[in-house]
């Protein structure tokens, strides 16, 4: 286990050190102490290493992650795991707004609650939130799965594309073009897999699925041939 004291050794050194790790490294376990809400912790990693942050972080923790498993023993600020490509990011506490924004792949697990705009513009990432999520979550979400074991706030899935949204609790309101959809067998499989990997004991049959009505995919043009 390698230990990095962020307070005394600085952010540049941390990210530089972690970004230099490759698939062949034998230093596969790292812990970061004294994060004290710092921004951009463990960003741009691209190796199958495990990084544990011993405390809460600021903005963009684990941003653009590839391959790495990053655990935060605390809560995270805005934009955790933004644009993640692969790997896993696991948050013990709560997440601020934009969690998993624009993520292309990998798994983001939030064991507490997530604030507004969780999964905004997601492009293939899987997100599992054990608690509730805030308003405007999955706005313009393009692909991937958002699983919410608690409740969802206002305007869920507004202007949604092809992302799948699963909510166990209540939904305060659906956004434009977002509708409830049938939960088919393949969706139960997806849910079971994600809940297992996220360490949740929720049951797939307790969820409802939401997706795009696809009514906003094209402009509404009268006499389109004439346009």
């Amino acid at each position, binding site marked *: 286990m390698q230990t990095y004291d962020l307070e005394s050794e600085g*952010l*540049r050194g941390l*990210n*530089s050190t972690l*970004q230099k790790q490759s698939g062949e490294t034998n230093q596969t376990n790292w812990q970061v102490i004294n994060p004290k809400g710092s*921004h*951009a912790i463990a*960003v*741009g990693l*691209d190796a199958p290493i495990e990084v544990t942050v011993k405390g809460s972080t*600021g*903005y*963009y923790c684990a*941003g*653009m992650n*590839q391959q790495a498993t990053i655990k935060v023993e605390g809560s995270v600020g*805005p*934009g955790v795991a*933004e*644009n993640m*490509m692969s790997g896993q990011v696991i948050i013990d506490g709560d997440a601020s707004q*934009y969690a998993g*924004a*624009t993520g*292309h792949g990998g798994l983001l697990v939030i064991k507490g609650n997530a604030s507004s*705009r969780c999964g*905004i*513009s997601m*492009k*293939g990432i899987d997100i599992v939130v054990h608690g509730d999520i805030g308003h405007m979550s999955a*706005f*313009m979400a*393009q*692909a991937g799965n958002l699983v919410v074991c608690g409740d969802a706030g206002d305007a869920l899935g507004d202007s949604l*594309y*092809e992302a799948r949204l699963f909510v166990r609790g209540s939904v305060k309101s659906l956004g434009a073009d977002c509708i409830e959809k049938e939960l088919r067998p393949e969706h139960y499989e997806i849910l079971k897999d994600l809940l297992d990997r996220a360490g949740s004991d929720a049951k797939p049959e307790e969820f409802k699925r939401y997706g795009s009505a696809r009514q906003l*995919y*094209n*402009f*509404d*043009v*009268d*006499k*389109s041939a*004439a*346009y």
Partner: protein
Amino acid sequence: MKDMDDQIPRTLPIQSATFSNPINAEIRRAAATGIYDIRGGGAKRKVPHFDDLLFLGASVSRYPLEGYRERCDTSVTLGTRFAKKPIVLDIPVTIAGMSFGALSGPAKEALGRGASAAGTSTTTGDGGMTPEERGHSNKLVYQYLPSRYGMNPNDLRKADAIEIVVGQGAKPGGGGMLLGQKISDRVADMRTLPKGIDQRSACRHPDWTGPDDLEIKILELREITDWQVPIYVKVGATRPYYDTALAVKAGADVVVMDGMQGGTAATQDVFIEHVGLPTLSCIRPAVQALQDLGVHREVQLVISGGIRTGADVAKALALGADAVAIGTAALVALGDNDPKWETEYQKLGTTTGAYDDWHEGQDPAGITTQDPDLAARLDPVEAGRRLRNYLKVMTLEAQTIARACGHNHLHNLEPEDLCALTMEAAAMARVPLAGTSWYPGKEGF
């Protein structure tokens, strides 16, 4: 009496200036379709522009440099504030961001070839980086847009600079648009979207809001790219003084200010023509902000929107810009709106010089299209040569003017080299009205 009645002069038909034929045609089009007019390009309305300024040239009080022989440098370095590897360009004319999707693959390749041959940079667009444009661009700026289509850290690290796009001059406050006709399999795959949809991008970034967040976003991008490459912040010209100041405060290496004549691949005509500031009006406030913060020349200013000639380049630099960017002009150099396609333009209901339905993907010149047959009309090698030549001419023209004003580097041009032909241009450019020592807003007339 009957004969006289027949000779009474008749009132001539008078067209309304308010309800003109173009306005009435647009009312009829809107009534027929129920959708606003969408088009490409920038503002077509006449606004005060660089044509309204003149250089004074050397005289008794200043002497010129020998026009064909004496040295007049043109290089510019962008990103000297924080980046370990600033971009060094041979000429202060760069190629603005235009996406693969909006443009064909061969067109993007041609831009890369021409820019590289001329010693300058080109820029990606909304849709990510293609291997072709990376391969043909010696210096490539990677746009970081609200949509984040195709955004990934591997491409980010391949870039020579990162341009955070807050807005563009054609539509400040609006997002990108790419209609279904141009969403080919490859474009759809790059953007993680269904094929054939009318893709309308977000107008603001998904994971930051405001200058304080932007500062942290820039920190993150620098951490991911090891502080190697410059980070630009591009804004559509609306509040140039404050936007420039806030971009500097957020940590930008370069500010890109895009006026309303700056083009777009597609957006609402009402947006293009009615939102934003003329390019001429935004330079001095942006420079003023840099000067007030003590970072003029340390944070470079790139101006875009309606740059067409070496005279425009020289005027923008004289007003304090470090470089300019061209988009529409570069497309024209490649072959956009070329008279040789007039017959086909007429089939599309338009004419040479007016073709702006770039969103429909039927460009006869094969530039703003994803149709393989049309795209094949553009030879990227030949088009790249044309762009290189055009960039060379712009540079020569700017040098001609600079030498005539007595300067041995384009960056030595200054506002004192200029006068204005109109009150409006004098007020916007803050240079004296021709023949006077005064401009509107200046005290002590």
